[in-house]
């Protein structure tokens, strides 16, 4: 595992591509060579077989015609000697004795009548005799005392004896061995060289891709104006860079348009809302009967809800786009939660709910106070709306050096399982909820904008459980993520 991490080259695409390319190339060339080798070996054998068959026929002819007198041995030996000089591709042996060719005439009784070649020919004869399938065509023969096999052709004479002409395969094998040796070196060189070239070319190519990736990853939500380097290339990588830049152009203009739209939407809606609300208030302050004022009151309520919805939607959208403006100050979370419980306590007890707080004392966090107020208010609002009577809400606040942990839990019915997994998404709300479903989305957006995290779950004993980890100070994100285990342990 550590070696994999230590060697990033081994994990790069360039490495894999060159590895596979090399493998394919090596196997391919090897196959081509095997075919060539086979062809050459066959050709050499065919040529020596042709020579053997021709010579043995000539020798048989000579032996048949020469009278069996004292000179017979000398004539045939002479012819055999001459023939052996015509061996194709032969290299003369270092010793005077020529051991690459032998000539043997033997009768049916197994006694050699005539022998031309190295040694006394007894081993050769024994080898020929032990060869089971004697035919007239050339065949391979291993002879004791010789490293290389002989290629032997024979012809039957009229007197019943046979003439054998053997040609050592030494030269043939040497040629093939030479061929193989040279090929292997060349093959190794080509493969190494080729894979090096493939590796460096792909590495260079993918290097451009990596450059693009690195630049693209730097282009975050806040910085949409940067572009990936395009260079002068006109290949696929160059096109990739150009396409990415075009895409970024479009995204940038969309985001800009979105900002403009939300900005002007907010402004254009707020001014008329103010005017409408004000006019209704003026009507309401004049003496009206209850049945006349009631619709106006409900319209004002609805206007306020609309405004709140508009504000929260825009806040959530901005926070999700990391564009929420935070004016951070030191806020005592303990004091804030106490004040908030104080504020909500009458409403809670009117609904038959109990709230208790466990806190070890002041916990100072760096946060936008107004947003933090709304976060806690949203959490309590949520409990107030969804808990049935006679439930208890427990709020726990603790802290270590890196983060504050705020736990809000209750013994109510808990989150419905179908919404638990996307509880922090906008417009997600319980089946019976008449609210706009932005409360927890807003909480999550603000917590994340401050670098904290929030999790929602159901307690094993029943009831909802919300845990918020809020960083203390800045730049301690790494430790914050470990907070839960530390705090719970």
């Amino acid at each position, binding site marked *: 595992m550590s070696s994999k991490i230590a060697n990033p080259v081994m994990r790069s695409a360039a490495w894999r591509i060159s590895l596979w390319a090399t493998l394919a190339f090596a196997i391919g060339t090897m196959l081509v060579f095997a075919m060539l080798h086979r062809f050459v070996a066959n050709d050499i054998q065919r040529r020596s077989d042709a020579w053997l068959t021709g010579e043995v026929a000539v020798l048989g002819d000579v032996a048949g015609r020469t009278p069996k007198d004292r000179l017979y041995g000398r004539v045939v030996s002479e012819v055999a000697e001459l023939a052996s000089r015509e061996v194709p591709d032969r290299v003369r042996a270092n010793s005077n004795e020529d051991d690459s060719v032998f000539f043997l005439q033997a009768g049916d009784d197994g006694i050699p009548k005539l022998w031309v070649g190295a040694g006394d020919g007894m081993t050769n004869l024994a080898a020929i005799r032990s060869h089971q399938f004697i035919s007239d065509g050339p065949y391979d023969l291993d002879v004791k005392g010789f490293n290389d096999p002989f290629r032997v052709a024979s012809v039957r004479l009229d007197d019943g004896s046979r003439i054998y002409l053997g040609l050592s395969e030494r030269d043939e094998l040497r040629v093939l061995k030479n061929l193989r040796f040279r090929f292997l070196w060349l093959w190794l060189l080509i493969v190494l060289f080729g894979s090096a070239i493939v590796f460096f070319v792909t590495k260079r190519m993918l290097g451009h891709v990596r450059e693009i990736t690195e630049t693209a990853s730097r282009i975050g939500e806040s910085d949409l104006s940067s572009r990936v380097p395009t260079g002068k290339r006109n290949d696929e990588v160059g096109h990739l860079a150009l396409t990415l830049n075009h895409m970024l152009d479009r995204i940038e203009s969309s985001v800009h348009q979105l900002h403009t739209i939300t900005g002007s939407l907010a402004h254009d809606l707020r001014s008329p809302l103010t005017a409408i609300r004000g006019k209704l208030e003026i009507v309401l302050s004049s003496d009206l009967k209850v049945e006349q004022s009631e619709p106006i009151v409900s319209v004002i309520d609805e206007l*306020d809800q609309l405004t709140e919805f508009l504000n929260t939607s825009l806040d959530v959208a901005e926070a999700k786009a990391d564009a929420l403006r935070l004016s951070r100050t030191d806020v005592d979370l303990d004091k804030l939660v106490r004040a908030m419980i104080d504020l909500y306590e009458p409403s809670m007890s009117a609904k038959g709910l109990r709230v208790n707080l466990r806190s070890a004392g002041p916990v100072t966090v760096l946060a936008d106070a107004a947003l933090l107020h709304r976060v806690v208010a949203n959490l309590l609002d949520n409990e107030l709306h969804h808990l049935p009577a006679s439930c208890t809400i427990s709020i726990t606040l603790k802290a270590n050096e890196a983060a504050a942990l705020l736990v809000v839990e209750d013994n109510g019915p808990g989150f419905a399982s179908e919404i638990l997994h996307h509880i922090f998404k906008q417009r997600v709300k319980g089946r019976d909820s008449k609210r706009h479903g932005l409360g927890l989305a807003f909480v999550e957006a603000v917590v994340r904008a401050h670098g904290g995290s929030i999790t929602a779950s159901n307690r094993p004993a029943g009831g909802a459980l919300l845990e918020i980890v809020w960083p203390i100070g800045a730049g301690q994100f790494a430790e914050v993520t470990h907070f839960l285990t530390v705090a719970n342990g």
Partner: protein
Amino acid sequence: MRLLLVEDELEIQDFLKQPLADAGYDVDAANDGRSATQLASGKKYDVLIVDLGLPDQDGIDLILQLRRSGISSPVLILSARRSVDDRVKGLEQGGDDYLTKPFALAELLARLRNLLRRKCAASEEATRLRVLDLDLDFINRRASRGGEPLNLSPQEFVLLAYLCQNAGRVITRSMLLSEVWGMRFQPNTNIVDVHIYRLRGKVDTEGREPLIRTLRGIGYVLKDR
């Protein structure tokens, strides 16, 4: 009381003028920064209402410009922006106040009153306050009605005190939230109403004349006569 209203939205200008006049202000209106500067240099205004989104100038720059030219009257800032930026908060610490749109008319009037009161009588700290038969003792933080002590929690005392200090004037929920609890947000629920309901249960007991009146859709008012 002379008031300069700097607001480019004519609709808002129109509906504000009458209630402001009814509340006793002598209102001049300006549509942009340039005419506001002209008006302010000609007359002395006791209080200014300035919208931040003016066509020719940023509202905050206008306020800073007026301050530099020696105009020190308090300013109520109107903003259509959701998040109140730091520059506005800076001005708020200098004695000015802000409201985000849409706002309640009652709140606008109350904040104007606050601005003017801060200016004239900030030092005058009352130790006792009487409104009709209600008696508040700020030193011991006790309240009584018709001589009978009221059993109020500290929070309820602060709430009643705020209502008494603004007796006869309309108080909105968000004003109560910001002045009594120090929170500036619009809660989704009627949490303030429940507080008032509780307080009323202690102050306006059976057989007594109800003092805390609810103005539906607007807020509350404590009777002072």
